[in-house]
């Protein structure tokens, strides 16, 4: 399996001198199976440069999996160039929105309204298919199997486990560790604690033992208290999670848009000091736009 990061920034594209090394594009990860089948996780702005590279291998079938419907995970989709060329196929997977009751087609519909984008879906020449997944559902994309797991974010967010030929990867999309909304002494504290532990076990089981874990580490532990409930993790929470599930490699991603490269490396190094590594433990890395690994 091969992966390439095309966007590692959270919230909003952040191109500037200070972000040149890690990149300013929002979330997009390209996966190639051993048979070279194409799987794309999220359609942030990183999907635009990715889609340009696909023009040399037309026709393409793109199996796209959207973690959730926030802009920074979908706003590159209208610029996915293969959609304009006949013969290509896009299969867009994602969750149903429990508030509107609509499936994943909503992420395209909302963006392709004529006032906001000049090309209507009917004018796109590729074949476009929508697959709304249920939590826990497994689907096949070529030789890979992909399983959706419901995580913790303000909107329904699926983490995806991708498995192929004995290799595995888990991408969280956006995820905040679960916490108790009650305080010790509240009547519901114990009940809630039990529910949270059960939910966390379910999530960790879904991630268990992956070769590569790619996780939302937007904040530092100092920033987190002011951002609690916003649906994002910290470097430290991702490192703890990676150790707990026995990942071989952790990539910290969804970099905070105001954090320049130097600050990013500094904060990552501090978190690393709090989680010293020994032989055989998870290898902690920062996701950077453009890097490619094979495992």
């Amino acid at each position, binding site marked *: 399996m091969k992966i390439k990061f095309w966007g590692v920034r959270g919230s909003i594209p952040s191109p500037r001198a200070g972000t040149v090394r890690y990149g300013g594009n929002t979330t997009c990860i390209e996966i190639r199976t051993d048979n070279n089948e194409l799987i794309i996780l999220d359609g942030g702005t990183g999907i635009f440069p990715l889609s340009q590279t696909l023009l040399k291998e037309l026709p393409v079938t793109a199996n796209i999996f959207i973690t959730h419907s926030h802009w920074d995970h979908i706003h590159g989709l209208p610029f996915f160039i293969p959609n304009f060329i006949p013969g290509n196929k896009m299969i867009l997977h994602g969750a*149903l929105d*429990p*508030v509107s009751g609509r499936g994943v087609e909503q992420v395209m519909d909302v963006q392709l309204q004529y006032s906001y984008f000049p090309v209507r879906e009917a004018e796109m020449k590729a074949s476009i298919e929508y697959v709304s997944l*249920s*939590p*826990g*559902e497994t689907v096949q994309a070529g030789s890979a199997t992909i399983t959706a797991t*419901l995580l*913790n*974010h*303000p*909107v*329904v967010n699926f983490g995806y486990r991708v498995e192929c030929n004995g290799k595995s990867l888990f991408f969280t999309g956006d995820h905040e560790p*679960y916490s108790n*909304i*009650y305080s010790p002494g*509240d009547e*519901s504290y114990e*009940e*809630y604690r039990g*529910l*949270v532990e059960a*939910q966390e076990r379910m999530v960790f089981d879904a991630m268990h033992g992956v070769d590569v874990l790619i996780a939302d580490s937007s904040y530092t532990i100092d920033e987190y208290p002011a951002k609690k*409930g916003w*649906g994002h993790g910290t470097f430290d929470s991702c490192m703890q999670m990676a150790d707990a599930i026995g990942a071989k490699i952790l990539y910290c991603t969804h970099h905070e848009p105001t954090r320049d490269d130097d600050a990013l490396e500094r904060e990552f190094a501090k978190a690393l000091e709090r989680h010293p590594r020994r032989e055989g433990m998870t290898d902690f890395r920062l996701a950077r736009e453009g890097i490619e690994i094979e495992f």
Partner: protein
Amino acid sequence: MNNLSEELNKKLGEAVERMPAFPKSVQKILELTRDLNCSPKVLVQVIENDPVITMKILRVLNSAYYRLPSKITSINHSVVFLGLNTVKNIALSIAAIGILPKKNAAGFDVSQYLLHSLSTAAIAKHLGSKIGGADPMDCYVAGLLHDFGKIVFAQFMPEQFKVALETSMKDDISLFTAEQAAIGTDHTVVGSMLAEKWQFPEPLINSIRNHHSEKAGATVMGSCVYAANQISKKMGYGFAGDARVESLPPAVSKHFGININLDVLIDSIGDDELSKILEHAKQFAQVDAS
């Protein structure tokens, strides 16, 4: 006669989706959701005090879409599973429908109904935690929703329901018997059919269905809801259209001990606990508001 036609079941299900919630909870939800950092536990409390919102959130959660290995009854569990903001947004979308009108063509007082439902819920929870063998919060939710069928009648079949309410009063027969004559079905059937249609947990469906039947005695939860309903009526906590207090069938009373009747059970709860329950219920039912 006790089975709703497929068509009526569908019609009522769709109608409930458009059904507004109770005034106090709508007001609280609008207030809470103006604050990005609103207290999660206050929001849960508001939802737990409104049968309409609870019903609708459980409907989303237990739908086939989520493929839950075990069904969800509690709002706390819904928050852990779906996330606070999603639950908040569902609640907000329900609040946006409007408020349940205090006056309806059936002449059914929704504030008194809510007071009865909330006190039944709290008493069922108390009984459940005292005798064990049932999750107290599950008993609470079952108590909260046990009479849901009545609010559906009041909203969507007001004329027929009005006849049932009047007949029950005039002939001194229980409301569910009068409903069967006037509507062709009763609130236990409609409430449990909706719960079944929305794939609620089996014990919750059964507790709603059997709350006027000795079959309630088959489970601890069913017995707690049966007894709590009668206690609430006997104490005069709110009014849901049925003045008759039924004695506890042996199958139900056996769960609470030997020689237990309604009065003994009420004594065992104690005045302090009962007044606390009433005060809390009154806060949410807004019985004093016009």
